[in-house]
């Protein structure tokens, strides 16, 4: 049952799609950002899962033998950077939403469009 064994890739794909759906379909700007965060988190899981080896341990010099099985630490390091990027994006997005709320008095896309058209 290969597809059951690879369940972590299914989690990645489903989470990715839920996030993308949120960004596209939700009309509330904060909910869009929640979708965007989910979308990015899915990719974090994808990177983590691809570096993991069954029973693998962390390769630390002096604390492990060369006979041990190692997980690949590099994807985790990479995704640490991507997590920082994700947090900055969410923070910046939220601060723009705050300014949109100040300027338009709403964070619903429909209301904002209506006010833009009324100008």
């Amino acid at each position, binding site marked *: 049952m290969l597809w059951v064994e690879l369940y972590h890739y299914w989690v990645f794909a489903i989470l*990715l799609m839920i996030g993308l759906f949120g960004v596209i379909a939700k009309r509330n700007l904060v909910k869009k950002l929640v979708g965007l965060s989910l*979308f990015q988190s899915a990719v974090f899981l994808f990177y983590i899962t*691809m570096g993991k080896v069954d029973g693998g341990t962390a390769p630390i010099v002096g604390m492990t033998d060369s006979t041990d099985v190692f997980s690949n630490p590099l994807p985790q390091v990479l995704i640490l950077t991507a997590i920082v*990027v994700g947090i900055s994006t969410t923070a910046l997005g939220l601060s723009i939403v705050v300014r*949109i709320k100040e300027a*338009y008095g709403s964070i619903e896309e429909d209301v904002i469009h209506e006010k833009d058209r009324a100008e």
Partner: protein
Amino acid sequence: MNLIEHLPVLQVILPLLSAPFCILMRGHMLAWAIAVVASGAAFAVSLSAASIVADGATLTYAVGGWAAPYGIALEVDAFSALMTMIISGASLLALIAGMASIRQQLPEEKQSLFFAAWLLAMAGLLGISVAADAFNIFVFMEISSLASYVIIAAGPHRKALGAVFKYLAMGTIGATFYLIGVGLIYLMTGTLNLDDIALRVANVSDPHPVLLAAGFITIGLALKAAVFPLHVWMPAAYNYAPHVVSAFIAACATKVSLYVLFRFDFTVFQPNLSGHEFQFGHFMMPLALIGILFGAIVAALAKDLKRLLAWSSVSQIGYIVLGASMTSEAGMTSAIIHMFNHALAKGGGFLIAMGAALYYTTTRFSNLAGLGKEHPWLSGAFVVIGCSLIGVPGTAGFISKWMLVNAALEQGGLGIFIIAVVVFSSLLAVIYVWKVVELFYFEPRPEGASSNAVVVKTPEKLLFMMVVMLVAAANVWFGIFPGEPLALASQAASMLTGGAL
């Protein structure tokens, strides 16, 4: 001698380290001066790097002394040298010309922060151009994107916020798609260095994940590059950004994403995936052709100068993608030279819009009539730059269109169709440029139209006019003597397509 070795890293480090100093400067003039000096230094670095790599050499730099493929490598070849020249040159000229416009559009206490974000955006874009490592490209891409969201959101109109939010959502999706693609490649090859990937992709056990990666990377980067139909974030973002930001971003940001796309696709995927040239060409070409026509038609209907220029960019990006989608050396040369020529024309166009807004408050057509009589030099420069956008012989735009048509002739029957589309869209470009020219020269200044929005000091005006004249002259100069950029472009094209054989 030692300094030459360090050119690739200096390119990024100079603006990156200058950014914090901008924040520390309370006086906005000092911050502006730092930004100008940093851009100028980056421009000087890119020029000297370009002079070294023009004959096909490559400058490589191992960050921290750790050699590739394990360490982080930076690489400057003809293609990246051309990109760094466009980026740092656009930043330098926009900053020098934009002094008065920045004063008009931004509160004084915010300006030092604005310049810091500007330098970060530039450092990110330069970093993408010199990085030789798929993951570092992602990191630099996010640095430049986050900083450009900030400087675009600085636009005075509240619509800038909505535009930025859309850009942020779509830009993040694009970058994340790219990240998924890189992850899949790493999964199959175990390396992130671009040259190393190109070597190892050939021996992967199963090509399907690599094909999937090619799809993710192509779509993600096309989204960031505003390739039709993924351009929807772009016109609003360019339109509502501060004028000086439009001039800078329009000249280089989308082209850098195209640079990554071409580099990835032509050096990694096309040589190693059978039939990928066909897939890339036949996927991108229809999009490019529709984008060229669609962008030009909407531009011809626009009622605002900045909106017109933004939609014209959709069309012009189509030309770049069209050249690349032929996957031939001639096509690639035309694509790369058009990156340079379009940066000159579109950057210049947005500078003119900035000047118009300086004198007449807005860039709406209803308020711009009669500009030709009151400001003959400014409108004269627009005529030259407009000719370059159309591709009139004797201007830079003609060179790229000529190369594009020559490349299309190699394609046989399909080429005739391509040429027909190019000619038709050039006629559309004549319409939208003529609309502005008619407005400037043949319509009287409307009664009671607002003017002189801001008191422009004489030195500011002199600097602004100097830059506008320089850009207009460059559009003519590189139309008659295209030597240097063309040499770099054909060098880059033969390198990219040479890998594809």
